């Protein structure tokens, strides 16, 4: 449909229909963190297993939401599995930078006032498919929900290791 190809890329629809790493992990040892999008009621739960070397050993996603929030969560889970916490933080920054121009002007989240200080030079790979979301500002919150939830989970896991 005209106007929607930028939003609903084939890879996005594929992740929506066939979500990767769907499910739960036993808590503990895994960390469990919930995210909400109050605008639409989308809910996401991220389960994180981080090993002794600070590597994301396993990740599972549950909850419910629209195609953008769910495919973003699915792509995120594939992208971060096996990466170290530091690598994931850089990837999150790069992803949010791709999304954040509009997000910060819509609703300041405190960390992205003005231009982001430094965007890590990280390849986004498949995640690039979500770039088109920026053209649909009301959906940016959907695309970043999983990432904000992941960031919170990592902070909690690092501060309170199990």
């Amino acid at each position, binding site marked *: *449909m005209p106007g*929607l190809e930028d939003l609903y890329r084939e890879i996005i629809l594929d992740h929506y229909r066939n979500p990767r790493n769907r499910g739960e992990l036993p808590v503990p040892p895994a960390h469990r963190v919930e995210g909400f999008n109050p605008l639409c*009621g989308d809910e996401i739960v991220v389960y994180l297993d981080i090993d002794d070397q600070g590597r994301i050993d396993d990740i599972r996603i549950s909850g419910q*939401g*629209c195609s953008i929030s769910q495919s973003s969560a699915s792509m995120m889970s594939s992208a971060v599995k096996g990466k170290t916490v530091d690598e994931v933080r850089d990837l999150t920054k790069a992803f949010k930078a791709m999304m954040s121009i509009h997000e910060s002007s819509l609703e300041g989240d405190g960390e992205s006032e003005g231009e982001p200080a430094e965007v890590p030079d990280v390849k986004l790979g498949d995640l690039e498919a979500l770039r088109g979301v920026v053209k649909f500002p009301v959906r940016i919150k959907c695309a970043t929900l999983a990432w904000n939830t992941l960031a919170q989970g990592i902070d909690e896991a690092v501060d309170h290791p199990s």
Partner: protein
Amino acid sequence: MTTPIDPAVVKRDFPLLTKAEMHGRPIVYLDSASSSQKPQSVLDAMDELYEHTYANVHRGVYELGAETTERYESARRNAARFVKAPSEREIVFTKNVTEAINLVAYSWGRANLAEGDVVVLTEIEHHANIVPWLMLREERGIELRWIPMAEDYTLDVSSLDELLDGAKLLAVTAMSNVLGTLTPVRQLADAAHAAGALCLVDAAQYVPHLPTDVTELGADFLGFTGHKMLGPSGIGVLWARAELLEAMPAFLGGGEMIRDVRKDGWTPNEIPWKFEAGTPPIAEAIGLAAAIDYLEGLGMDAVRAHERELTGYAIDTLTERFGDQLTIHGPAALDARGGVLSLALRDVHPHDISQVLDQHGVCVRAGHHCAKVLMKVLGVGATARASLYVYNDETDVDTLADALADTADFFSL
């Protein structure tokens, strides 16, 4: 016998519906349960005020001030007439229905509810009729009880007397903003009174769509809002029986709510001004009066008849085209519901539905509709809600159905 509504004629009175476009397509506005569009006469009434007679109310003794005051108070008479209030003194202008309910919670609630006192709500309330009571529960330790939703999306009143036993207040919607369910307000109010409780009616979705008589409904408090009934945003109404308003303490201080102030104290004004602190929404009240005039011109019986018929057409059309692919979360019987259609299209998320509909120029709301308690009862996170009003017609419903078919194709159902 009322004159039936011709939506094509009505639509011409609404500039946005005839002039505006979305993605190069005419607007099909199906989000009136969220906020309605405004007829030219409402826009003109507000413009005319600002251009010719504007001044503050209840202050200047010059002609402009006197004239604006008269028009503001005349708007109160319109509102009283519209809901058949016994007296215009019982009409308090607020910002919206949320403020009307909060006014009752803050003023009546804090004066009359103590730890252990019971307020009865229903599972189908929206947040404005839940959160003020949850706040009172945190502050005072009151007890909340919930009338459950039945299988058929109506209220399950089988345990009503037990739920109301010892209650001080029943706070209930007259029509659900998600399901369209019309609740049996009179029956509920009678049961509340028999139990010694008062009855607050959230009529935000009712007053714009059905003839309203506060006495016939048996209400003690009734709130509604201007922007859902062709009026401007920023103006709402709390109606309450005069003796209740008389006894309730003022809650916002300053401006017209004052009779006298001394260094050692103050005396409140009479009702309704006791509850109208500061400069009120003057032009908005006058806009609301024009909206009431417009609706009375159509006739509320005709408004109800039109929406009932159009709702029937919509349910038939959508059921015929989509069968069990589509769920309508609401009562099937037209007498039990208003023109709110909360839709689920198989496993397509409501956000994605509304995104595709947007491309067709169709405006619906997607989300939890500020009714998260009800969403949990329904077992869903969100719905796509199409809501009908006086300016909608069968063509709008057909466009909605076409857009939904396109949505189903796009997401390969």
